[in-house]
């Protein structure tokens, strides 16, 4: 497992395991929130813990499976109370090989859930409710949360309630009555530090020596890898990666990109693989857009910049056209095109996301008269003009 070298994670793992197993052994209810930025391993730790528990308590196998089973809900899918309860009922049915009826109403489903909780409690089966994207469940009236937590308190059930969220203040979002039924246990997951990242790199990238790959090849590969870790340029790359976003999932994404770049003939990971991986993941989309613009589109952007510099609060495309005309009149450029052509070019840069309408979605006006604004900064614009291979010098002067 990727996470076994990760000390903090181990600690959190054991804590979570303690919480869940105490519910199994002591037949009590528990609730906990797992919080942390996206990709730091919350769900991975949870899966680990549940797997371990399944191995640990196989002796109390009842008719329909193990001692611990989980019900998973996701805030993106089930934030609506009706669909959440329906999903709970469906998963309960699947677990216990019952027939699930799609026609059941909200009340039926909630009665069913409470009844099942009671039965599971009597049979000493622990139900683990896992709620991904927990903060999305706290929108609205929080009926589901209240129903679950209340059921856990009042009914003789053995349940663990685990919420997983990327919002660090997810527990502040709970209503008063829900909050009072919730034990304020929070486990905080943090992104790994630099040395932990190196340990992870080693663990993920090293080839296992005792697998079906030839032993010599694996040793040579690992040796080359370790020598690269101490290379200064490699450390610089890892530094820039850490500045960007050092969570475990991002690291896996970065390594995937590096490994897919590997030259199979060389059959070794080289420094260039990592370099191309980091540059392909750290892109500057606005710069790319600017480099792709045609010269007329650049003219329009420069005109808009000049209007903004003159501190015109809101200007429309027709004002941009006037500025364009005045530039042509004063500098006699060769790029003077008709209004329709300019309007179409303007629509292109609208599509690409370099400019946008300043009045939101509401107004029913034609494109020429709606207020517009630039979505790139002046510095980005001048940088993009410099990087453009065909930009006329006059434009760079005007944008300065």
């Amino acid at each position, binding site marked *: 497992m990727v996470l076994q070298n990760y000390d903090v994670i181990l600690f959190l793992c054991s804590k979570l395991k303690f919480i869940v197993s105490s519910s199994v052994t002591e037949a009590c209810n528990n609730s906990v929130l797992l919080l942390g930025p*996206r*990709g730091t391993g919350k*769900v991975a730790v949870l899966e680990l813990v549940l797997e371990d528990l399944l191995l640990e308590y196989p002796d109390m196998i009842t008719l329909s499976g193990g001692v611990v089973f989980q019900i998973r809900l*996701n805030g*993106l*899918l*089930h934030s609506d109370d009706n*669909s959440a309860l*329906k*999903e709970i009922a*469906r998963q309960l049915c699947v677990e216990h090989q019952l027939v699930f009826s799609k026609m059941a109403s909200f009340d039926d489903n909630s009665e069913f859930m409470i009844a099942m909780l009671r039965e599971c409690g009597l049979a000493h089966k622990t139900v683990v409710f896992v709620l991904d994207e927990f903060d*999305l469940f706290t929108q609205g009236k929080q009926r589901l949360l209240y129903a679950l937590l209340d059921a856990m308190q009042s009914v003789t059930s053995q349940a663990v309630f685990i919420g997983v969220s*990327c919002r660090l203040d997810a527990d502040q979002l709970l209503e008063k009555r829900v909050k009072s039924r919730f034990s304020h246990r929070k486990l905080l997951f943090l992104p790994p530090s630099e040395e932990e990242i190196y340990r992870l790199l080693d663990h993920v990238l090293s080839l296992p020596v005792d697998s079906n790959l030839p032993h010599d090849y694996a040793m040579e590969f690992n040796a080359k890898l370790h020598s690269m870790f101490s290379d200064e340029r490699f450390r610089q790359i890892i530094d820039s990666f850490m500045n960007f976003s050092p969570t475990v*999932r*991002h690291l*896996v*994404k970065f390594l*995937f*990109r590096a490994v*897919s*770049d590997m030259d199979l003939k060389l059959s070794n990971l080289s420094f260039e693989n990592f370099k191309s991986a980091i540059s*392909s*993941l750290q*892109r500057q*989309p*606005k710069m*790319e*857009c600017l*480099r*792709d613009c*045609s*010269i*007329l589109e650049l003219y329009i952007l420069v005109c808009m910049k000049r209007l903004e510099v003159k501190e015109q609060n809101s200007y*429309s495309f*027709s*004002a941009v056209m*006037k500025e364009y005309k005045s530039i042509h009149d004063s500098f006699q450029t060769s*790029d003077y*095109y*008709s209004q*329709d*052509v300019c*309007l*179409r*070019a303007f*629509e*292109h840069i609208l*599509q*690409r*996301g370099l400019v946008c309408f300043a009045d939101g979605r509401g107004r*029913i*006006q*034609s*494109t*020429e*008269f709606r207020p517009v604004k630039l979505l790139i900064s002046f510095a980005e614009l001048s940088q993009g003009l410099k990087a453009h*291979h*065909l930009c006329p010098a006059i434009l760079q002067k005007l944008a300065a």
Partner: protein
Amino acid sequence: MLGWFLQKRKMGKDEVPLITRRTTRSSSATAISTKNNVVESTTSTNICSPSPIDLLYGGEPIDLDVLLSNFPGRHPQIRELLQILGPLNAPMLPVFVYGGPSTGKTGILLQLFRHLNRPFVYSSCRTCYSPRILFESVLNQLSYHQKNSTNGYSSVKRCEKPSDFVNFLREALVGIVKSLKENRRKSKSSKKLERSIDGNMVYLIFDKLELVKDWDKSSTILPLLFNLDSMLNIPEVGLIFISSTPPDTFYSSMGYIEPIPLYFPTYNEDDLRQILVRNQANPKLYSSFLDVVLRPFCRITRRLDELSAVFSPLFIEYCKPLNDLAIVPNEDLKRKLFSNLQPHISLFLNETFRVLSQSSLGAERTKDGEPRGSKSKVGTCEDSDELDFHMSTSAKYLLISAFLASRNPATLDASFFDSRGGSADGRKRRRKPSEMAKGQKEAEEQELLSKGPGSFPLERLLAIFQCITSVAEDSLGEEVQEEDSLEVEGQNNPLMSDVLLQLSTLCNANFIVKGGTCPLEGSTRYRSVVSEDLALKVAKSVKFPLAKYVYRR
């Protein structure tokens, strides 16, 4: 993209491809190839039992060299895609392919899957314009279900909610992966004549993702799609997103682990030249044509579709003085052709984006074609002042009144339209304004113009309409009329009921838009969005002196 498209048509006519469910079931004549389907000729309709083979790209798989040669200038992107998709059965993280329009993203991906011979599910968010249609399209393809008349064009399952979609999707994908593994085992034992599939993986392709941002439910659908791989947690599934806007335009308050970005830059001039020259009957002639026109037109736009659209009529102009279209031009001839084309270039530059109406396409044109006059963004032709669509006379007058109502400020109505209907010509404003006042007035008028067309209530529109139709009756009074007697009767009552109908017609045709209601008055306000050129044309066709009534500097 054009080159690839034409190449496929040529290829398809030569060979007899294998019929898969992905192709349209036309058991008779050859079907026209589209991006997904393949040209098929008449063969026996194979009633094959549905299997994952239906998820392959129809037709024979192609070589990598063929793929690379079909898409000039895209070698780095194709190589990167191949690296990310990986060798057989390699799991992958989601990929986000982005780049400007017509840069070959969809084309390359589909051809790549044809080359790799791996099953995929393709849905475009343009044809699947709502979440339900998108979900059902994906599920239909995964169940090899085709909508036809026998099942009443219905989907295999009704799926509206994201939670149902994820459940059904998981079921279907697990089923397909299992059947792929079984097929592999079976094919190892028996010699198969059918096409074999490579790998155990299934790929989901979502195209035109930028359109999802405009949907009502985009705040839930976009995070759902981007989080789909972690929700499904099936390693044999690969997700690919295609969009023409970069990934930073998709950021929202709901987070997700970003997919791996893959950028398709717009073609530079050399690539454009290579692509445009393909499939031309006389490449050398076309290449000399491109020498002349490519650079100036690239200053306006670098999009391949727009350039090819403007080059085809221009090339016809270029070849006019030639008698034999197959000759290879030498330097002399090139210079002659260039000087012949020169005056047309500037004309065409200003009409780069013009959409030509059907009548002018294809047929030999003696003068520049008629434009479609409906929207102001389409260029107008200097030669023709004719309207090329028909409107009834009362509708024309209504359009003119709407234009005047939007254009003139309401306070000046009295001076423009006096009670007798004649143009008052602003007699009150005859005194000569001072220099400063003139400058101020000009600035105000400019500002009024730049603010755009104003809105007006229905009563004002009707008042102006009555005014100018009475003017029209007077001016037409001497002429003999046999036409529609409705408006020349001198009675306005039958005219009024028609007016309201005409107004709703004009609204539907987007000549007039309905604005919001004023909370005090409670009546809706309208706004005219026709350009001045169109209004002039309409006025000319009914011989109405529009210039006298328009508020000008």
